[in-house]
């Protein structure tokens, strides 16, 4: 046996490990969800039919397969509840991502321009909120935003408002919560790209006649686009499916798709429709991912 094959085996294992992980924790569960989305509700345990039972032989499986249908997806398209919550999710996610970008970019830029020894400290400060559970932080926001909460007290004390403002159960509260929670996910990839930026490029730009502002738009910003893309995706995708923040901070007027899913799954016990909604959500998120992939390829690939 050659030395090569001895070493090759663990290396090969390491190479397929990520695929194994994806299969076990993504593809297999997704298969279940996809199957349930094609089933019908039933008052049973589990609450849907048909069930596959491999012990009953090939004929039974074939019969079960025949029972699967796209009815739930038809329902999603025909019922405005689902369409409007999809639209709202996308709208909220787009708006939040835009706000996150507007707030996150200057912060990341400032961090990248700090003296080297201060940068790890700034990074710590961005990450520190993660030491407290996400849920607890959202509850803290309820406290801050409520009628006699900290925000209203400050606004009253500064005479900015004359009467307490209703924050809680509004979209503003939801946006505050989302932007607060996702800001690190926007800042970190942006910071990583901006910190790598060769400062000599900015000097070259100014040497060639670009004012500091022009140099930013012509050099820094285009070169930070991969970070912008990564940060935007990292925020956009989970915000589309966000459940906790809108549920705790927004009003009950309109729902995001995550809330609709919850409602179908836990309140209505309609697993098949909930699964169909989840599958549809996944399909909805594929186009932005592909777009990002293409943009990144173009960045890397150059003119060819």
């Amino acid at each position, binding site marked *: 046996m050659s030395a090569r094959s001895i070493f090759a085996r663990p290396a090969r294992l390491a190479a397929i490990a990520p695929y194994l992980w994806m299969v076990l924790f993504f593809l297999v569960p997704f298969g279940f969800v996809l199957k349930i989305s094609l089933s019908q509700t039933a008052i049973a345990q589990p609450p849907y039919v048909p069930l596959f039972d491999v012990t009953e032989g090939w004929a039974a499986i074939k019969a079960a397969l025949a029972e699967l249908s796209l009815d739930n997806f038809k329902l999603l398209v025909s019922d405005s509840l689902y369409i409007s919550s999809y639209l709202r999710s996308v709208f909220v996610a787009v708006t939040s991502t835009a706000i996150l970008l507007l707030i996150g970019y200057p912060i990341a830029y400032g961090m990248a321009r700090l003296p080297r020894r201060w940068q790890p400290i700034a990074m710590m400060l961005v990450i520190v909120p993660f030491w407290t559970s996400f849920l607890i932080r959202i509850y803290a926001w309820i406290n801050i935003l409520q009628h006699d909460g900290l925000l209203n007290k400050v606004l009253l004390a500064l005479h900015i408002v004359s009467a307490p403002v209703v924050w809680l159960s509004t979209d503003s509260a939801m946006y505050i919560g989302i932007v607060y929670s996702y800001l690190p996910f926007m800042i970190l990839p942006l910071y990583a790209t901006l910190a790598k930026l060769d400062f000599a490029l900015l000097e070259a730009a100014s040497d060639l*006649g670009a004012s500091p502002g022009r140099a930013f738009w012509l050099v820094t910003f285009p070169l930070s686009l991969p970070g912008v893309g990564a940060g935007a995706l990292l925020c956009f995708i989970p915000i589309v499916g966000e459940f906790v923040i809108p549920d705790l901070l927004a009003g009950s007027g309109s729902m995001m798709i995550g809330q609709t899913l919850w409602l179908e799954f836990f309140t209505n016990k309609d697993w098949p429709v909930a699964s169909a909604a989840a599958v549809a959500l996944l399909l909805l998120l594929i186009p932005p991912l592909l777009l990002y992939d293409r943009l990144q390829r173009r960045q890397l690939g*150059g003119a060819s």
Partner: protein
Amino acid sequence: MTEESPEIDAPKADAAAAHTLQAEPIADMPLLRIEGVGKKFGNFRAVDRLSLDIRAGEFFALLGPSGCGKTTLLRMLAGFETPDEGRILLGGKDIAQVPPHLRPVNMMFQNYALFPHLSVRDNIAFGLKRAGMAREKIATRVAEMVALVKLDGMEKRKPDQLSGGQKQRVALARSLARRPQVLLLDEPLAALDKKLRESTQLELMDLQRRLGMTFIIVTHDQEEAMTVANRIGVMDAGRLEQVATPRDLYEAPRSRWVAEFIGDVNLFDGEVGWREHNRLLVTTKDGVTLAVAEPRQTVTKSTVTVAIRPEKVKLSRRAPVSDAANTHAINRLEGVVTDVGYLGGLTVYKVKLDSGAVIRSSMANTARLDMDAYLVGQRVVAWFTPDDCMVLEQ
């Protein structure tokens, strides 16, 4: 496209039009005058009240070990650093406080600093667009520049798709495109391999001569500085040790430091004895008396260092026969060869003299089958003329 020729007109016309000189520029006013310029970083004096004149059309090299302040000086010329004191006069106008994007100088950066997201064409056009040049004029100028640095057919490539040598050309074209009054080059060839570096040095010289531009290059490579520059400023600890032509720097260094920094040298400390026939007789510490030519500037100190370049030291088996009148004309030192280093074109010998001192001699291998090579342990005479000796005051 009408203009296929890579020739571009000398920058004078443009520069004169764009730049508001005084009505009558003073005749012998240099293009660039650095006047008592100083820069400190914390407590470290990077550039120490340095003054230097550079004439239009010169290829000037700033040479020195790392940390000598040459790059800081260049960056002050480009505008990336602001001097703490002194003036930088370009065409008579103080530009010390002018931000880089408003200066009529351009820089070629050490690692090229090409914009990775822009094509070769857009990199070269970057400065022209900022200058508000018309679209057609930009296209013409870029085509000229591409031809000038022989990058035809590469216009659409991104920097990542270029070799090191090609990147270097793009950087050069980009910095030349605006026809700056002064082109600053920060270690422009450091990233190239030796062969390519040597051929690029020659191209750079040719380019500078053809364009009639003023180039200031910063380098730590003395051969490079000697090859390309008309004049070299040797820097150490933020000061100019000597400003001279490459030849003077090598054959007439002003200080022991410069003599040791440029090339290889044998140094003998000694006391000035007496003078005769325009010769100084210097007695070294090991008790050897050397006859040296009296330098142009009179020697005021009694303790001096005699410096002899190794290639001036010849070896022979016997001392060369000299006529009686010239007995004192030649220094003859006997010793034993202790080390032989064969370098191809040259052979470097170390000879331990009977006085105890060691002298190095390098001899050109002019014949292919050299019967005259010396061997370790062989007794030889090392000889050199008084004119080959340089007298340095400490």
